């Protein structure tokens, strides 16, 4: 039962509590008996089985490891004879809290899988969005209601996006690669409102390295155009990106090479 549910896949390792749950259940780890070093070892072994490195997971693991060390040390430290009953209860509640969070995390992880199934089922149908035909258009009270300059830009980008050539035998469409121009347009839309942002945050939801590459290229190009400022305190350090509020660039995107990796 547990085997099936916690089968090792990259996506299983996104939350620290989920990871902990996995380690405890799968390897029957007694967290108070085992050395934290052993947990780290088993974690590294799991990382080896992951398709690619996920730094967020790695840092999250450090957090949970620290929590464990803290819990463990508070158990192992000699207590004075006159241990405050409140302190003792606090220790209990600490463990209960950890258990509660593990369970809650696991619950929402399962719920998110259910949402994904619902979305996949609904995604097989496309809603009609045609609107009234020409005969009724002169009746529309406010034709541009809710339409602003940004909507016009978004519509232009939609219209000029690379369209697939109609053909049958579609195996899957979910794998639409990002193109640099799409990403650049996206960044131009997002960055001005974000102040200074770290590159990793911009790309945290991407799945593949090629997508990260495309984002990086887009940032590079915007930098080259003087539309944003970029700084990196140390090699391999965080790349901070700041929108240059004076930047303006009006050339359209049409005809840009789509880099499809």
């Amino acid at each position, binding site marked *: 039962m*547990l085997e099936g549910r916690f089968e090792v896949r990259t996506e299983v390792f996104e939350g620290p509590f989920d990871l902990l749950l996995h380690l405890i259940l799968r390897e029957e780890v007694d*967290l108070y008996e085992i050395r934290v070093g052993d947990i780290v070892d088993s974690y590294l072994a799991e990382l080896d089985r992951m398709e690619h490195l996920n730094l967020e997971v790695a840092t999250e693991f450090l957090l949970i490891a620290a929590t464990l060390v803290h819990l463990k040390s508070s158990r192992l430290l000699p207590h004075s004879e006159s241990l405050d009953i409140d302190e003792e209860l606090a220790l209990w509640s600490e463990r*209960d809290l950890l*258990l509660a969070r593990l369970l809650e995390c696991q619950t*929402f992880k399962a719920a998110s899988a259910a949402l994904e199934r619902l979305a996949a089922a*609904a995604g097989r*149908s496309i*809603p009609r*969005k045609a609107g009234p035909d020409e005969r009724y258009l002169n009746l529309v009270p406010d034709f541009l209601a809710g339409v602003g300059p940004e909507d016009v830009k978004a519509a232009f980008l939609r219209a000029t996006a690379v369209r697939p050539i109609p053909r049958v035998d579609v195996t899957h469409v979910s794998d639409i690669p990002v193109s640099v121009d799409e990403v650049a347009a996206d960044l131009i839309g997002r960055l001005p409102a974000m102040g200074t942002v770290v590159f990793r945050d911009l790309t945290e939801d991407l799945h593949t390295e090629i997508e990260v590459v495309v984002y990086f290229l887009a940032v590079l190009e915007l930098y080259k155009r003087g539309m944003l400022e970029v700084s990196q305190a140390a090699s391999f350090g965080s790349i901070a990106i700041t929108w240059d509020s004076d930047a303006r660039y009006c050339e359209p995107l049409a005809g840009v090479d789509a880099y499809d990796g």
Partner: protein
Amino acid sequence: MTDDSMEARRAVEAIVMVADEPVAPGLIAQLVEISIDRVEAVCARLAEEYRSEERGFELVRVAGGYCFRSHPDAESYVKRFVVSGQSARLSSAALETLAIVAYKQPLSRAQVSAIRGVNAEGAMRTLQQRGLVQEIGRDPGPGSARLFATTPAFLQRLGLDSVDELPPLVDFVPGAEVIEALEASLMADSRPNPIPEPEDGSSSPAPTHGPEDGSGGVVAV
């Protein structure tokens, strides 16, 4: 509007056909001058007709209204045709965050982060950009944190009429054996225990938070 059900039927079909988003039954009722119950009945009958005639489209109730959409069986034909409106897959981090918002709404970013155990700012931003989550106001309490909830687009994406149709969260609570295994692992403690042991020397002494009430009380929505 007459009592002629054929006219009501045609009117409903015509209105939904020219709509670009789900039309609330209340609005249809107003326009066609029939009761909301009649609207619901007419729509149910139409949906059934399309089904039995094996049409390539269906009439569904989504996000609080009725709309036409292509039948799932025709997926392969329409997917290549329609590009805009296709939504990219969400990462599992974003999906988990979305699930938390969906079941706990309205709630603040900090509350989402507390449940996820990690900072949820990035995932929340992604969900807002995709139009699946929106800010709906401020917490009236101290700090007046911004509160977030899911959008109609979220319901449309999932094909749901309302969030009440989400599968009950209790279905996803880990089974008793998982809880027990976790608890045993967390509670096992070799150090002398200053708290009086239960008579049976159980390894699971948590007196006030046993597995039963612990699981229920903690994850209850």
